[in-house]
């Protein structure tokens, strides 16, 4: 190989490798925090590509988007500009799990984000393939591109997605490739391995894209968007979105579809063992579903538009790595797809990831200073999970350079905290997806209160404007005032009042009761109780919603707050990363090994490592106290 001649491409504070969902949030965060940032991507046409499904949000994921927004990230604002259908899921369940999920126009989503990057003052957007990182004295110093540019930098964020060591599988055919026909990033994968990084293979897959006009919709169930559109960004609350939404369609596979799959299983690289990567259990291929749930005679298939400027349709539910000819056959046995015309073939893609337990909670590498990782390379899956990590990695790159404390959200503060803590404390065996059930403090971490939880933090970091911050404080005050006001309106148990209560579908009261407490009854809403409160001001819907939720779930939320208080105690007992666990007498061997490997940030984090027992935690607490007192003695 001929040695490439290198040249100095420029000096930056932060270089971000990759312009997917993680990369752009990282780059925007660091540049908005005042640092000169370069973002490198293999193709400028691949910026925030929605390479798989055309959706943003959903359960747990929608929560992440709201949190990113409250912290000053871009994802929510960008999807509000480019969605073509919007639905709030789970409305029949409690407010903590209401989840916003929209259909995106993929092209628009890309174009709008590209504009933002291009216009960002401290940010340089550059097409280029990073092939190496320069590390000196365990500190990252620069990035080398394939065309010979060396970019000197103080911090690097690696967000390579499925590009790193990417390999596409379609039946017996397989080749090195990035997502959706993009170039793979192979040299970087090699140089990381040379530096001693242990990379492992993960796998994901995507269904075919088919021509809109080749589908017979007559037997399908139409799925329209919500009549009332609620935006993702808190900045867009109250804004009108009165364009015509594009529907999705629901159809089903048939027994014939399943027969074709069964007959051709031996041609699937998943079942024949070619693919070593681990795929996500919540996003199985159609082959997987047919094999594992053999008793089902049909599976759901959703037909979703990829955008307004294209006739490509996404066939949700039928991802596959079977040979192309088999795919076409089996798709044709799906109701309504008898004459389907393929535009892009379904494929599985395998890529390199690191073990996220080698990262700190700040997403910085434990041994190499100022080297950060975000997104799929950390073993996560999903646009939203990637964006959330990108934001935190970008913020912390900036914090490090500015000499400030790392910014860490804990499990009681945000889904983002749950996501990162899970990844770096426990690691993951499959691509990690956010789910509301992963958040133990789900009732307090709602998507509707993400702004109240996080805007202040975003403001302190310098990512949220003064104006936005003040508006959130005002909102908070309005909610508080309304709660207090409702407590002061007392309803006496008169015959008249009781008959009014009956009229609005409730039952009588025996003692004087405040309107506040009446709202706690499941059958009474903030709106319906207005009969006792005719002079109330008309408040914004989002404020009314907060008031009602906070009253109705007060008991549950209080219980959760107590749990959080307990949780915080161990979380606030910090552990030194350099701590030598082998010197702590009384720890079990397993605990010593695990603690030395994970190097937890706090006793709380230590307690979540598998193999660390409550007795080990007690030993740690005693040891900490011992050290604290020794320290005191030395100072004297």
């Amino acid at each position: 190989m001929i040695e490439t001649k290198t040249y100095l491409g420029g000096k930056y504070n932060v270089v971000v490798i990759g312009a997917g969902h993680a990369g752009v949030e990282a780059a925007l965060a660091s540049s908005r925090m005042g640092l000169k940032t370069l973002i490198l991507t293999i193709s400028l046409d691949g910026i925030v590509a929605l390479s798989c499904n055309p959706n943003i949000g959903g359960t747990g994921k929608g929560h992440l988007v709201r949190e990113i927004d409250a912290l000053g990230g871009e994802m929510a604002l960008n999807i509000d500009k480019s969605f073509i259908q919007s639905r709030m899921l789970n409305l029949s369940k409690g407010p903590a799990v209401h989840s916003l999920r929209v259909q995106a126009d993929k092209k628009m989503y890309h174009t709008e984000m590209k504009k933002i990057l291009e216009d960002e003052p401290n940010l340089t957007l550059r097409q280029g393939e990073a092939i190496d990182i320069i590390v000196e004295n365990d500190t990252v110093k620069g990035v080398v591109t394939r065309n010979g540019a060396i970019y000197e930098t103080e911090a690097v964020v690696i967000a390579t997605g499925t590009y790193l060591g990417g390999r596409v599988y379609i039946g017996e055919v397989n080749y090195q490739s990035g997502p959706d026909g993009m170039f793979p990033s192979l040299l970087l994968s090699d140089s990381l391995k040379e530096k001693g990084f242990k990379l492992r293979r993960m796998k994901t897959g995507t269904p075919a894209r088919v021509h809109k006009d080749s589908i017979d919709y007559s037997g399908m169930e139409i799925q329209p968007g919500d009549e009332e559109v609620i935006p993702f960004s808190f900045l867009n609350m109250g804004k009108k979105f009165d364009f015509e939404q594009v529907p999705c369609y629901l159809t089903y596979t048939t027994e014939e579809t399943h027969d074709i799959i069964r007959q051709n299983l031996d041609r699937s690289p998943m079942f024949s063992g070619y693919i070593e990567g681990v795929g996500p259990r919540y996003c199985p291929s159609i082959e997987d579903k047919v094999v594992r749930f053999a008793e089902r005679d049909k599976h759901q298939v959703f037909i979703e538009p990829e955008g307004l400027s294209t006739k490509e349709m996404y066939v949700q539910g039928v991802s596959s790595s079977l040979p192309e000819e088999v795919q076409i056959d089996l798709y044709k046995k799906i109701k309504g797809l008898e004459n389907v015309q393929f535009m892009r073939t379904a494929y599985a893609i395998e890529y390199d990831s690191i073990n996220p337990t080698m990262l700190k909670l700040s997403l910085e590498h434990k041994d190499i200073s100022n080297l950060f990782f975000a997104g799929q390379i950390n073993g996560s899956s999903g646009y939203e999970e990637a964006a959330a990590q990108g934001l935190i990695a970008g913020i912390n790159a900036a914090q490090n350079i500015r000499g400030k404390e790392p910014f860490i959200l804990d499990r009681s503060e945000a889904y983002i905290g749950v996501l990162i803590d899970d990844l770096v404390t426990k690691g993951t065996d499959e691509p990690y997806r956010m789910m509301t059930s992963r958040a133990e403090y789900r009732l307090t971490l709602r998507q509707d209160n993400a702004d109240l939880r996080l805007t202040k933090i975003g403001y302190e970091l310098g990512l949220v404007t003064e104006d936005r911050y003040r508006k959130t404080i005002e909102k908070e005050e309005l909610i508080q005032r309304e709660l207090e006001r409702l407590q002061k309106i007392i309803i006496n148990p008169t015959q008249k009042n009781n008959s009014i209560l009956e009229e609005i579908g409730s039952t009588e009261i025996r003692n004087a009761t405040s309107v506040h407490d009446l709202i706690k009854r499941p059958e009474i809403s903030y709106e319906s109780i207005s009969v006792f409160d005719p002079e109330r001001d008309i408040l914004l819907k989002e404020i009314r919603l907060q008031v009602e939720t906070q009253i109705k779930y007060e008991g549950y939320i209080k219980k959760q707050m107590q749990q959080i208080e307990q949780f915080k105690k161990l979380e606030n007992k910090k552990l030194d990363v350099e701590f030598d666990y082998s010197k702590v007498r009384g720890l079990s061997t397993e605990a010593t090994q695990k603690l030395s490997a994970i190097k937890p940030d706090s006793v709380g984090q230590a307690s979540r490592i598998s193999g660390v027992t409550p007795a080990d935690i007690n030993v740690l607490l005693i040891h900490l106290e011992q050290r604290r007192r020794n320290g005191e003695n030395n100072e004297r």
Partner: protein
Amino acid sequence: MSETIAAISTAVGEAGIGIVRMSGRESLQIAKKVFSRSNDQEIDKKDNKRLLYGHIVEADTIIDEVLVAFMYEPYTYTRENMVEIYCHGGIIPVKKTLELLLKNGARLAQPGEFTKRAFLNGRLDLSQAEAVIDIIKSKTEKSYDVSLNQLHGSLSREVEEIRKILLGMIAHIEVSIDFPEDDIEEVTYDELIIDGNQVKERINKLLATSGRGKILRDGLNTVILGKPNVGKSSLLNAVLRENRAIVTDVPGTTRDIIEEYVNIDGIPLKIMDTAGIRQTEDMVEKIGVDRAKETLEKADLIIAIFDISRSLSEDDHHIIELIKDKKTIVLLNKTDLPNEYDEELFREYFDASQIISTSMIRGVGIDELENAIRAMFYGGDIQLDSEMIITNIRHKNQLERSMENIGSVLEDLGREIPLDCLEVDLRSCWENLGEITGDSINEDILDKIFSEFCIGK
């Protein structure tokens, strides 16, 4: 460190007094709730570290007559507010007192937790840190061992079964929440109510028997001794019939001995029935005096049966020799038949309170036997390992908490409270029971979801 903890701090079952200790912010208030001072005076700081006389009372029922010391922080062992309650010795008063404190908001202390707090709050010298670690570790290990040993096969199976139902409920709720568009049947409130009621009933059953010590794997080693046909089996049957808390028969450690578990008023007995030896005419000769001695040596209590319708044989004298200095109850059986025995002979070796005349066939004397066992136990003549009692309380406490939680889940289901809210108590219930069997791992829920539901919209 604000949680208030409580524990029994003396060996259980000893004569004299038993001390229940409590430490933490709320300890004074909790004690005031259950302590009724004899002179009805308000308890305040002037009573600091004074012994107050009164009663521990639960819902107007007196649990025990006690002395109580209220100790104000920071000049206490743990440097937190502390209360010590001096009960009568024996297992029941201390156990009930502790349970009452737990009901009123205290949490059962973890092994070594008082010492740990004392250290963390600066009460103990730095040089004692290592010792504190040793205490915590050894106590934790011991309690873990005891806990595992005590978990009766059938109990842990039942707890596992209940947890399985709960896991199914949780997984179904979670899958409905997290995968609303997937093709799975959404969980209905009616289904949850049916499952929830089943859980409640089964926990209730466990609780009902836990009071009688079903949870204890081991009881007092009790040997029933006697020649063939003196009425050993009838005795066993009579005792078992009256005390339905028989657990199971576990094949004995030796082939000759059958073990049965029985519970008399909270006193767990592990009965080793030498009736297992049937072939031999002469039990003492057959198993050998040494062997018999060995078995008797290990016994906490010996119940020796003699048939008074036959005259005293060589073997009977052997038996008397073997047991005369041990904790023994002598049953003179078959009073329904003509008496061939000289009772006076027994009075030479045994105290009158140890001798009971019975007729197993007519059911005469069983009550007296139970009373005698009770008297010996509460009198402190025989003891139980205190670690065992604590584990018993710990399990019972967890059962009670799980009961409370499933109760509020059912109440919420009735009121159609949203799934995400009622899931909180449901998960707590699952975790409570997991504390008993020793695991509560979140990953179980995801595994359950992915193995049972076809996810992947």
